[in-house]
């Protein structure tokens, strides 16, 4: 039993009762928040796991093609071919609020003149495997972007869930029991004071009655004597 160090008065009792009500309500809300965060977190983790596997397979495929290309074409030729990209992307970041956590949402803006004309080199000096590798990468790009978004979401949700869980536990196992113990302590203390008071009053009354009886006896004796 752990009691908060307060003076056992009626005012403190009312205050602590109010605090207990707030803590109980807060505990319920935080618990709901934790459950919902957890649900979303687990859904996202499952999706991301599949997404990552898919992206890893695709990138490995692109790397394989690239390795083939670099075994046929000179390294310098590849470097020259990729030196000045035609495509340019810029990333727009907006925020999405998930249970009070601001999750970034990524959206790309491509600055390409034409979709068919995205390669920055002619076909003459490079191997077809390079085109293949780049086309696989460009197919995977949307998934890569989604992966970046989801992984960030998972990291941020994990931190938030940990925080919320700590808060819920602190409320459930420390604050609420402390308040309950303190309320019981103050109630008992007040009851004890009340009983003490009643006993004292009874005692005083007894003494007064005794005195009156004594006085009456003496009066009677004087009258008869």
């Amino acid at each position, binding site marked *: 039993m752990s009691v908060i160090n307060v003076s056992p008065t009626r005012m403190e009792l009312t205050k602590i009762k109010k605090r207990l009500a707030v803590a109980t309500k807060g505990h319920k809300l935080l618990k709901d928040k934790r459950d919902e965060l957890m649900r979303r977190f687990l859904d996202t*983790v499952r999706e991301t796991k599949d997404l990552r596997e898919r992206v890893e397979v695709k*990138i490995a495929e692109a790397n394989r093609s*690239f390795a083939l290309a670099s075994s046929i074409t000179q390294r310098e030729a590849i470097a020259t071919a*990729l030196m000045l990209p035609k495509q*340019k992307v810029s990333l727009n970041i907006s925020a999405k609020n998930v249970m009070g956590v*601001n999750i970034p949402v990524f959206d790309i803006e491509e600055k390409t003149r034409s979709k068919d004309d995205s390669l920055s080199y002619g076909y003459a000096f490079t191997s077809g495997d390079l085109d293949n590798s780049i086309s696989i990468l460009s197919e995977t790009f949307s998934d890569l972007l989604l992966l970046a978004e989801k992984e960030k979401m*998972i*990291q*941020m949700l*994990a931190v938030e869930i940990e925080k919320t869980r700590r808060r819920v536990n602190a409320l459930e196992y420390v604050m609420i029991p402390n308040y309950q113990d303190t309320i019981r302590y103050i109630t008992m203390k007040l009851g004890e004071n009340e009983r003490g008071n009643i006993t004292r009053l009874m005692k005083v009354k007894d003494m007064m009655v005794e005195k009156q009886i004594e006085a009456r006896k003496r009066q009677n004796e004087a009258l008869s004597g």
Partner: protein
Amino acid sequence: MPKHYAEGCVIYMCSIGVIGDYDSICGFSALGLDIFPAENIEDAGRELKSLVSRGYGIIYITEIYMQQLALECEHYREAQTPSIVPIPSCTGVIGVGKALLKKCVEQAVGSDIIFKDN
């Protein structure tokens, strides 16, 4: 054409960077991403810091470097940006990306309930 976003959203523009050995990342330059080849881990660490300070939104980094720069990446985990994502290098997948997911699940749930079968 400007897109319509929900009210109250903060929208800003930034770039995407890729760090790794040249052979693993040069294909990304054709997609319009900024590539930063790093020969060794010191270079990669330097590039990572410089990209973060220049406000890159997404940083793709090869798994091998990510594994060695885990401590540095840890700093940016709670921040909204950058999102640092491990990608396999040309030597193959070594499972750093999954290990990171696993770590997050352990942090949130207390024990790993998603990847335990693998």
